[in-house]
C-alpha cells in the first residue's frame, strides 16, 4: 500500500540543477528505512518554477520543497516521511504565509494563482514514462470518443468552434487548416508535429513533450483521423534528448496498448508515428524548410504554392501543427468547443504557455489565459524584477518578434493586441529586460542570430540581414550618422517585403520595434556617442569619483596599467589605454568607479 507520493521534477531545467541525484538519494534513503513499499518516488515533467529547481512535492500533504539538495534528503525522509513533520525551512517560501502556515493548495501561491494549465495540465502531475498514469487522467479518452462517436467533419467543426489558433507563432486558425487538409482527395496524407523549437530562450514545446508526451500522440491521432492521414512525423530538435527519449517510450507504449498501429479502438482507423531529428538549424522551424529537412536535404524553405496541404513531405499532402497546438486538442474534444472558447479574448481563445526568462525573479514556464496583461505576468506571476531594478521592456517572439515597452505594460497578451503594438505572440519566449539592458544591443543580438541562421537561399535575407547587422555595429561603436539610421529603417522594410520565408520577413522586427519605442536610445548612440544603459563597450568610459580612497587595488588589478595615482590619493584612468574590461569596477571596495 502506497501511503505517500514524492514527485520530483525531471524536466531539463531541474535535471540541469541535479534532480536525478535527488531522486537517487531519495530512493536509497527510503530503502535504508525500509519504506520503498510505502512511499513512491515519481519523476514528472516540468512544474514551471525552473528558477527554484530541483523541485519536489510530497503528497498527500502537497508540501512544495524547492532548491532541493541531496544533503537535505535524509532530514526530509526522517522528519517528514517518517514522523509526519513537514520540514518548513526547505519549503518554497511563497507557499508558506507569514505565520508559517502552509497554503491549502499550490494554486494559492502568487506564481500559480493567475495561471490556468490546459496544455501543461499533466506536466508535474504524472510520470511521463508511464502510459497508465496518462490514461488515469482521461488519456486517450478523446481519441476513443472521436473514433467511435464522431465523423471527421464533426471533429473539424469542433476545433473550428473552439477558436484554437496555431501556437507556433503565426496564429492561423487550426480548424481551418484541418479543413483545408481534409479537402485534398489524395489517398495518402501525412500529419506532422513541429517540435523544432528554436527561439533562443523558449522551451514550452520541450516541456510539453517531456512532461506529457502521450497528449501529443493522442492529438496527432485525432488530427490524422480528421484529415484522413495514415502516418505522422514528429520533427524534433536533437538538442532535446530527454524529450526525444520520452516521446519514443510513449510511442512504444502506445503501440503495445494498440493505441497506435492498425485498427485502433477496433475501428478501421490505422495510424503510426515516426520521430525525425533536427540537426540544429533555426530555419527548419519554418514548415516548408522542416519538410525539406525530413527529406534529407539542406533545410531550405520553398516557395508557396504549392502549399504543404497539397504537396508536403515527400510530395505527399501534409498537415503540420505545433506541439502546443496539439496539446490543447484532446481537452477540446473532451470538454467541448464552448469550454475552450470561454477562456481568453474575443479573437484569441484558450491559454498560452510562455517561457519566462531574463531579468525576472521566477524564471520558468507559465500558462495563462489569453488576455492576461503583461503586468500580471511580470509582477504577480513572475515576482517582479530582481535587485530592485526598473522594468524596461519585454521581448516576445524571439528573433521574429518585438518588444513591449514599460509604458504598454497593461497590454493584454493576445495575438491581435501584440500585433497592434508591433510585437507578436511568437511561439512563447518572453524575455524580461531591465534598465541595464541596451535596446540597440538587444536588436544586435537578435540580428547576429538571424545572420547566423539565414539559410542563404534568398538574397534579401542572406545579404540584407548582414547589412542590417553592419549598421547596428556602426551604431553601437559610435561611428554611425543619422543618415545610417534612415537607411537602416528603409532596408528593414525592404527585407520585410521581399524575403522568401517567415524567417527573413520577420528578421527586421527586433530593429523596427526597438526603433519604434526606443528611438531616443539609437539617437543617443549616434549623436551623443553614449550608451544610456552602459552596455556598448566602445561608447563607455570608466571614471573614478571622489569616493576613491587611494587603496591602489584597481591600479594593481588593471590588466593594461591604465590606472595611476599615489597611495591614499584619488586615482585616474587613462581613457587612451583603458580597454573597458570592467575589472577595476568589480574590484573596487568603495564603489568609487563608475561607467558612463
Amino acid at each position, binding site marked *: 500500500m502506497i501511503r505517500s507520493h514524492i514527485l520530483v521534477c525531471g524536466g*531539463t*531545467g531541474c535535471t*540541469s*540543477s541535479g534532480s536525478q541525484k535527488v531522486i537517487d538519494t531519495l530512493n536509497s534513503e527510503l530503502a535504508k528505512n525500509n519504506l520503498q513499499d510505502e512511499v513512491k518516488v515519481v519523476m514528472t515533467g516540468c512544474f514551471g518554477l*525552473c*528558477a*527554484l*529547481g530541483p523541485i519536489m512535492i510530497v503528497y498527500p500533504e502537497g508540501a512544495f520543497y524547492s532548491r532541493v539538495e541531496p544533503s537535505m534528503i535524509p532530514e526530509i525522509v526522517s522528519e517528514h516521511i517518517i514522523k509526519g513533520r513537514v520540514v518548513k525551512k526547505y519549503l518554497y517560501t511563497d507557499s508558506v504565509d507569514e505565520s508559517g502556515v502552509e497554503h491549502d493548495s499550490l494554486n494559492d501561491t502568487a506564481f500559480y494563482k493567475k495561471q490556468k494549465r490546459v496544455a501543461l495540465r499533466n506536466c508535474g502531475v504524472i510520470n511521463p514514462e508511464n502510459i497508465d498514469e496518462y490514461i488515469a487522467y482521461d488519456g486517450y479518452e478523446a481519441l476513443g470518443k472521436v473514433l467511435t462517436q464522431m465523423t471527421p467533419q464533426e471533429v473539424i467543426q469542433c476545433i473550428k468552434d473552439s477558436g484554437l489558433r496555431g501556437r507556433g507563432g503565426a496564429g492561423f486558425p487550426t480548424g481551418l487548416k484541418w479543413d483545408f487538409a481534409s479537402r485534398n482527395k489524395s489517398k495518402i496524407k501525412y500529419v506532422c508535429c513541429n517540435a523544432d523549437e*528554436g*527561439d*533562443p*530562450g*523558449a*522551451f514550452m514545446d*520541450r516541456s510539453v513533450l517531456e512532461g506529457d508526451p502521450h497528449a501529443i500522440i493522442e492529438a496527432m491521432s485525432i488530427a490524422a483521423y480528421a484529415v484522413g492521414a495514415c502516418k505522422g512525423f514528429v520533427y524534433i530538435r*536533437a*538538442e*532535446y534528448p530527454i524529450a526525444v527519449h520520452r516521446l519514443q517510450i510513449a510511442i512504444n507504449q502506445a503501440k503495445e496498448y494498440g493505441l497506435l498501429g492498425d485498427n485502433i479502438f477496433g475501428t478501421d482507423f490505422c495510424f503510426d508515428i515516426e520521430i*525525425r*531529428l*533536427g*540537426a*540544429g*538549424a*533555426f530555419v527548419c522551424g519554418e514548415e516548408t524548410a522542416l519538410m525539406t*529537412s*525530413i*527529406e*534529407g*536535404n*539542406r*533545410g531550405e524553405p520553398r516557395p508557396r504554392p504549392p502549399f504543404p496541404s497539397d504537396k508536403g513531405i*515527400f510530395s505527399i499532402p501534409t498537415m503540420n501543427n505545433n506541439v502546443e497546438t496539439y496539446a490543447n486538442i484532446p481537452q477540446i474534444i473532451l470538454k467541448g468547443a464552448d469550454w475552450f472558447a470561454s477562456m481568453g479574448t474575443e479573437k484569441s481563445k484558450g491559454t498560452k504557455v510562455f*517561457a519566462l*526568462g*531574463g*531579468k525576472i525573479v521566477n*524564471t*520558468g514556464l507559465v500558462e495563462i489565459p489569453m488576455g492576461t496583461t503583461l503586468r500580471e505576468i511580470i509582477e504577480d506571476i513572475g515576482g517582479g524584477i530582481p535587485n530592485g531594478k526598473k522594468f524596461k521592456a519585454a*521581448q516576445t517572439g*524571439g528573433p521574429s518578434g518585438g518588444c513591449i515597452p514599460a509604458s504598454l505594460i497593461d497590454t493584454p497578451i493576445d495575438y491581435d493586441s501584440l500585433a497592434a503594438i508591433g510585437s507578436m505572440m511568437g511561439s512563447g*519566449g518572453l*524575455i524580461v*529586460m531591465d534598465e541595464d*539592458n541596451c535596446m540597440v544591443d*538587444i536588436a544586435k*543580438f537578435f540580428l547576429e542570430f538571424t545572420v547566423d541562421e539565414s*539559410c542563404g537561399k534568398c538574397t534579401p535575407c542572406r545579404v540584407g540581414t548582414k547589412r542590417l547587422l553592419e549598421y547596428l555595429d556602426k551604431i553601437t561603436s559610435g561611428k554611425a550618422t543619422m543618415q545610417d539610421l534612415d537607411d537602416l529603417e528603409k532596408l528593414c522594410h525592404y527585407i520585410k517585403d521581399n524575403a522568401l520565408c517567415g524567417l527573413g520577413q520577420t528578421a527586421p522586427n527586433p530593429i523596427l520595434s526597438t526603433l519604434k519605442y526606443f528611438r531616443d536610445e539609437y539617437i543617443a548612440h549616434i549623436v551623443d556617442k553614449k550608451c544610456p544603459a552602459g552596455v556598448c563597450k566602445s561608447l563607455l568610459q570608466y571614471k573614478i569619483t571622489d569616493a576613491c580612497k587611494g587603496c591602489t587595488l584597481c591600479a594593481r588589478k588593471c590588466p593594461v596599467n591604465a590606472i595611476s595615482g599615489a597611495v591614499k590619493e584619488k586615482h585616474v584612468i587613462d581613457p587612451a589605454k583603458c580597454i573597458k574590461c570592467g575589472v577595476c569596477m*568589480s574590484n573596487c571596495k568603495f564603489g568609487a568607479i563608475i561607467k558612463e
Partner: protein
Amino acid sequence: MSKKSTVPFRGTKEQEEKLYEVIEKYRNIDGPLMPVLQGAQEIYGYLPIEVQKIISQELDISLEHIYGVVTFYAQFSLAPKGQYQISVCLGTACYVKGSGDILNKIKEIIGVDVGECSSDGKFSLDATRCIGACGLAPVMTINDEVFGRLTVSEIPGILAKYIN
C-alpha cells in the same frame, strides 16, 4: 560553420562495422540521409570526408549533396571534438545575464576560438543556442556537467580542474 579538420582520420574497423549497421537500419526508409548522418556522427564523434564517402556509396547519394547537408546543419561537425567539450549558452536569457563575457574569458584561458579544437585535442569550444536551463543563467556545460549562475571570476577556477 565548422572548420575543416586537420587531424588525420583514425577510424577503426569496429566503427566502420557499426556504420554499416546504421546504414542497413535506415536504408529503406524515406529520407534516410539525416538519420544515417546522425548515427555516423554518434559513432565517430564527427563526420570526416572518409565517412561521408562511405555513406555516399552505400546510399547512392552524391558526395556533393552529402557535404552540402553536413555543412548546413550546426550539429554536424567536420572537425573532431575535444576530450572536454565546453559549450557556453548564448540564448537570450543567458546573454542578458552576461554569458558573452563568460565566453570571452574561456577563449582567453584555453586559447581556442568558437568551433575549434585545441591542438592537443583536450578542449573544444562551442557557443550554443538556449539549452533551456534559463533558471540557471548564465550557463555553460563541460561534457555532461552543467555549471550555472556563473560569474567571470569563477571561470579560471573551474577550468583549472580540467587543465591539470
